[in-house]
Every structure is written in structure tokens, then in C-alpha cells.
């Protein structure tokens, strides 16, 4: 889903109409994809600067940023350094404390001295110094979507963002689907009318936990889009300051080609760490997602994980390596402030692809503050 401040939609007397990305923006889509491709193996900061320039191309900056959000989910960022950053920094600062840098020559001397100690060249040492910063992470891989797919994913994310503000949501499709019914229970108590056409209706109260609701709605809509003759109808109170909701209507014939579900966030940070026995599924396994990706059932996935004989802690739908869990818990406890962005950054630095789900599994509560773009995270866990 898109952050609330990037939602593009307008209200008429009765309806709310999303401002979809369409073919007329093909130039923008191509440009953004090219920017990402050109920044493979380059730092995130350089990519961000280039993307900022794209906001001045004359398009609605919300569209540019929204498309960027989607492209980020097609990207893998990681730390690439010869040495871990922390000991390098420490060594450099300690050396410079003894012999303060008064000129470039002094600086070079210190770099050379420390590089020799670490048995690397000066360039590698300098690159390692702050390689752990978010902005220094490099774009390691980028799976470029076709412009049309990019629009579809953007439109999907836009719809999900709008639906999080629904006070009534109704979905219908031909046939029956147990999985969708199960997912519906996660969102709210659904009214389910079964027959040739299944219709599921939810009455929803406005929530401050937009991200949580968004991810639950996304789970349902992702499945719905795969069905025949689906229809979605919702009363949407967006922007939230307008209390009278407007109708959002979508159906396969009219909107099916406009939408495509967003892939699971692919952003992954790889840290320099000593080698250890690793599962091919990673240290944090989101059972359902991973099984879906592998095209196998949850049970089959669990069998495969058991066969690897690596111990995991079961957090309910998430398996996590004990050492990873401990290190995540420590880092979360040390979180500088309670902003969700901060928690996301911490969890992503641990390679977690779904920070919100993991935070909830660890008994954190995610709550928007009412302040634009700011979502707070609290822990109710008792020691």
C-alpha cells in the first residue's frame, strides 16, 4: 500500500475516484525504471537524489513518489563492504584522536596506517567506514517491471490505501473460497452470503492502525483479483476529515486490467557476518508468504524446514532463528524513538521483509499519531 500522503483520488458528489496511473505516463515509468537500473551497485543516497530530480519533471510528485514506492519493492538493497563498518570507524577515530587531522596529508597517513592494520587498501577502508548507513546501502538487484505492470502495481497499492479508510467493504466473486473466508475473519467479523456468488461484507470502524488494516485488506484483495467476475464496493471516508463517505466501486471487467497485486516487499539488507549454518529460507520465515512463493502448502514448507534441522522459534506464522530473535529484540529495545520508520529500518537491517507482521508477533502495537506520515510503535510486552 502507499503511504497516506501519497494517495491520489478525488471525490464527486457520490463517489470517490482513484487517480489511476495509465498509459499516458509511459515516459515517466520508463524514466523511473531507467533511473533504478542505472543505480544498480550505487548507494541508496545517489538513487534518492536522482529520484528527487524526477519529481521536478512536471508530473504530480505524489505519482512519482508512489511509483517509486512500488519500484522499491522490486529492489534489493544491501551492505557491500570488505570490512564491517564499526571496527573500522573505531580504529580510525582512535588513531585520529592520537594524531588529529590538520591537513589532507595527516588524514592520508592515518588511513594508510589503519588500512595496513586491517590488511586492505585505503579505498576499501574508506568505503567500509560508513557502509552500514542506510544511505550508503547499495542497490544490489532490481527486477525491472514492464511499465504496464508498474502501473498495475501502483494502482493496486493505491486501491488498498483507499480501502483502509472504508467504513463498509463488500467483495463478491463466483464460487467459494475457504482461504478468502479465513482471511476475512482476520479483518473483521464478516457477513458471508454463500451461493453461486459469494459475497462478503464488512462493517468497519475508522482505525488509527492504518498499516495493520491495510495489510489485512491487501491479503483479501490479492486473492479476490485471482477470482472470476469479482466486484468490490466500499464506502470510503477519505480524506479522513470528510465524515461522509463516498462510494468506491471496482469490478473485474472494468478495472481488472488496471490492477495487479504488489509483490512482497523485496528490500533486503545483507550484512557482513561470520558464516553460520543457514536455512535456504532465511533466518526469518513468514510461513504463508514463503509457501506461496515456493508454490507449496504451509505444511510442505514446514516439512522442508524441519529437514534442514535448524532450530527456530515459532512466533505464530513466523519462524525465526533464536539468535536473530535475540538480536532483533535487543535492537528494538534500543530503538531511538517510537516512529514506525525507525522500527522498519531496524527490522529491515535484519533482513525482515514484513516488519509490521513481525512487530505485531512480538506484541508491539502500531498506532498512527494523527500527525501526517507518523506512526508510533509501542511495546506492551512485560519483562
Amino acid at each position: 500500500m502507499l503511504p497516506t500522503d501519497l494517495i491520489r483520488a478525488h471525490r464527486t458528489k457520490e463517489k470517490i475516484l482513484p487517480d489511476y496511473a495509465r498509459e499516458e505516463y509511459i515516459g515517466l515509468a520508463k524514466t523511473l525504471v531507467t533511473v533504478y537500473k542505472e543505480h544498480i551497485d550505487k548507494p541508496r543516497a545517489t538513487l534518492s537524489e536522482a529520484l528527487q530530480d524526477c519529481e521536478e519533471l512536471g508530473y504530480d510528485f505524489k505519482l512519482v513518489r508512489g511509483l517509486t514506492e512500488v519500484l522499491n519493492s522490486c529492489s534489493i538493497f544491501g551492505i557491500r563492504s570488505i570490512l564491517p563498518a564499526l571496527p573500522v570507524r573505531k580504529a580510525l577515530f582512535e588513531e585520529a584522536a592520537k594524531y588529529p587531522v590538520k591537513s589532507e596529508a595527516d588524514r592520508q597517513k592515518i588511513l594508510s596506517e589503519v588500512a595496513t592494520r586491517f590488511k586492505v587498501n585505503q579505498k576499501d577502508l574508506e568505503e567500509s567506514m560508513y557502509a552500514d548507513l542506510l544511505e550508503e546501502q547499495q542497490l544490489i538487484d532490481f527486477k525491472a517491471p514492464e511499465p504496464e505492470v508498474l502501473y498495475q502495481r501502483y494502482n493496486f497499492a493505491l486501491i488498498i490505501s483507499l480501502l483502509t479508510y472504508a467504513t463498509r467493504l463488500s467483495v463478491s466473486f463466483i464460487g467459494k473460497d475457504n482461504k478468502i473466508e479465513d482471511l476475512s475473519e482476520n479483518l473483521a467479523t464478516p457477513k458471508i452470503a454463500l451461493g453461486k456468488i459469494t459475497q462478503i461484507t464488512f462493517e468497519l470502524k475508522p482505525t488509527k492502525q492504518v498499516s495493520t488494516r491495510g495489510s489485512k485488506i491487501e491479503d483479501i484483495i490479492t486473492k479476490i483479483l485471482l477470482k472470476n467476475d469479482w466486484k468490490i464496493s466500499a464506502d470510503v471516508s477519505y480524506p479522513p476529515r470528510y465524515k461522509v463517505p463516498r462510494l468506491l466501486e471496482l469490478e473485474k471487467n472494468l478495472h481488472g486490467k488496471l490492477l495487479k497485486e504488489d509483490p512482497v516487499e523485496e528490500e533486503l539488507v545483507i550484512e557482513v557476518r561470520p558464516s553460520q549454518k543457514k536455512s535456504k529460507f532465511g533466518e526469518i520465515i513468514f510461513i504463508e508468504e514463503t509457501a506461496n512463493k515456493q508454490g507449496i502448502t504451509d505444511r510442505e514448507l514446514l516439512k522442508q524446514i524441519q529437514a534442514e534441522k535448524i532450530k527456530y522459534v515459532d512466533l505464530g506464522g513466523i519462524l525465526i532463528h533464536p539468535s536473530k530473535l535475540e538480536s532483533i529484540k535487543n535492537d528494538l529495545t534500543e530503538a531511538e524513538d517510537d516512529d514506525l520508520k525507525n522500527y522498519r529500518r531496524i527490522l529491515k537491517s535484519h533482513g525482515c521483509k514484513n516488519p509490521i507482521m513481525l512487530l505485531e508477533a512480538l506484541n508491539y502495537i502500531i498506532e498512527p499519531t494523527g500527525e501526517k506520515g507518523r506512526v508510533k510503535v509501542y511495546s506492551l510486552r512485560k519483562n
Partner: protein
Amino acid sequence: MITISFQNGEVLIKENGTVRKLPAYKYKEIISEYEYLKASIDNQALAAPKCPTLNSNYTPRDYQSEALENWVQAGCSGVVVLPTGAGKTVLAIKAMEKLQVSTLIIVPTLVLVDQWRRTLVDAFKVDVGSLGGGSADIKPITVSTYDSARLRSRELGNKFMFIIFDEVHHLPSPMNARIAYNYLAPYRLGLTATVGNDPDSNDILFDVIGGIVYERAVDDLAGKHLSDYTIKTIKLPLNPDEKLEYDRLFTIYRNFLLRRNYRMKSARDYLRFVKMSGRDLEARRALLSRNSAMDIALNAKSKINYLKDLLNTNPTEKTLIFTRHNKLVYKISREFLIPSITHQTMAEERQEILDNFRRGTYMRIITSQVLDEGVDVPDASMAIILSGTGSNRAFIQRLGRILRKKEAKKAVLYEIVSLDTAETRISWRRKQS
């Protein structure tokens, strides 16, 4: 018989079969009202645990004693404004000694929870609980973050007789104000280096805690209790290329304002302008141009050259270097190999850097805004503000970092500003108090 009880952040008054509900912070008023009327009341509201005896060896300075006296005279409620380094913690300890009641100390960050806990354990030699960051160890003396105190307010609202709000200027935000409303603690002390200028916020503050009972500015204490200090504002010209680009960008912004007849008089006007830029392409271009122009002014090359000279001529001064943006922090850290602290610095590394600074192993630290408040920064004698906001509070807090009294110490704060740019106005604004 009137029964007074506490439920979910409210005081319930049962009288003649009717129940009245009032916010918990009105408790003190309610009780004194009934006492005045000599009414017979069954007070079930407070469930404060027994407090251990609180005695410390701290001797307050004269102004701390004055502050305490004023606060007691005001009914043990009110805000005390003292500069950073003037010993607000000592004042709090003396206030706790005076009252000898269960106390909740509320602070903005987890780092401060630890700092306060350590100080209180040292001072009173009693167990001190903590609330926040996954810890929920409630004791008669407990230190909590604002967030945790708010989240648990309905449950803990009647457990403490005394609340100390550290950095109380955080309290008037809509979320945090709920703490003050939901706790019935009759005794309240707010501590800060600066109270803001927003009348609405101050109204909330004075309503839930009480007015300012004591206030001393840096200049009142400099020399005797705080170090003497000098502020040197250095205005440096941009280099010709920077100047050309700055003027070009700033003109785009200025012309936009002129064309639209838009006057930028206050922070609210600026916020409106930012909002407008969300739907108005021209406004957006103006905003981006302004931001880029400010980037040039705040991060000018001449500032780095001047910094280099300052550091070379003052090698033995313990120096804190402040910037507005992290980008400049890392640039300087790389160039001069100076330890840096930003919001991305993990707690362990930050502590190690601060410890090394305290020991004198490191003589310099560069930071953005994270050390402005909420972290116990070791004493320094020189501060260099390479760039900052127009916030008067941040300026005073940065100044406070070099004011801890030391024999023959003369603290110097250098403020480096780009000449003929909008930064000169920012610099002027932050020095208004």
C-alpha cells in the same frame, strides 16, 4: 457521605446517588474544595504504595533552594525553568526528599530513563522502577518514558502522589497532555530549560502543572554557577559558484511568494505553504528551490574551511560540533576522522563515543540534532554550530552543553553562518529569548 474513587483516568464522585466524573488531574482541587466545605468524604481514589525514606547527600545551590522554596509555596505544583547544566536533577531530588511520597519521573527518551534511574539509586540507595522500552517494573519511585506513562495512565493514574515531568515542554502535545490529565498526583513539578512561546501550549502546561514558579536564564547563572561563556557569530560569504546558485534558487522561491502575494510571517504560514505544494506544482517548485538554496547556505564550503582552522588552533579544547543535517555530519566525520553521533548511531556505539569523550580520549564529537536534549553529554568547553534550526530551545540546549562549571573555564560557542543568505535570519531567530 461522599465517595471519591479513581477509574480509568477519571475521578468519580458519588454523592446522594449521583455520580460525577472529572479528569483525574482535578483531584487536588476536588479534595481541597471538600475540605474547605468540611464535607465528610470517603477517599478511595489514591492507591499509592508506601514510599521508602528518601534521603540524599546532595546540597542544593542557592538558586536550587530558592526554586524549591517557591515551588513548595505554590502548593508543590509548578514549572521550574533552569538552563542545561544548572542541576535540575538535584532540584528534583530535593523535592522528592521534601515530599517523601511515591513518585513517577517522566522523561522523553529511554536513555534518560536509565540516566535518571542511576542517579536516583545513587542518591537515595533505594530500588527504582522503570517503565518503557519493554520494561514494566513499577516501584514507589519509578522512571518512565512519556509514551509508557501515557499508555499506562488509566491503570497507574492513582499510584503516584508526585509526578516530575523532565523536559516538560514535551507535555503540551495532544498525546502527551493525556498523561497530565489522567494522573491524579496532587504534587507536580515540571522541569525545562525553556518554555515555548506558543500560548495554547503554555495554557495547557500551566493548567495541568501550574505556572512557572522559578526561572533563571543562562546569563543569570553564568560566572558563578555556570561557566562564563562567549558566543561568537562568524558570518562567512558563500563562494562565487555557491552564491550564484543560491541566488538563482532563492529567487524562484521569492518570486513565487511575490506573484501569489503570500506573506511568510510565521511557522504556520510556512506549513500552509508546504501543504499548498502538495497540490500546486508551482508552489512545489518554489519549495524545492528554497530547500536547495538553504542546503547551499547551511552546508557552505567556507564553513568547513573555517571549521578546519578552528580545530587546528584549538587542539586541546573539548569540542562539540553541531549541524542541522546528517549529510554534513558524515562529510566532516570522514574528512577530519571525528566520531559522529546521529539517530542512526546504535546505542552501544554512541555510549562508547560519549565515554571516550568524557575520558578525554576523543576531544571532538560531531552530531546533528540528537544530542540537543535527552542525552547526558559530557562537559565540553567549545561548541561549534555549523548549521541549525531557528529554534531558541535547541540553541539554549546546545549552549548548555558547554556551561558546566569548571575552574577557570571560559566556554566559547561559535555559530557559523552564511552571509547574505536566509541563514542569517535563522541565526537571529534562535538567539531571541
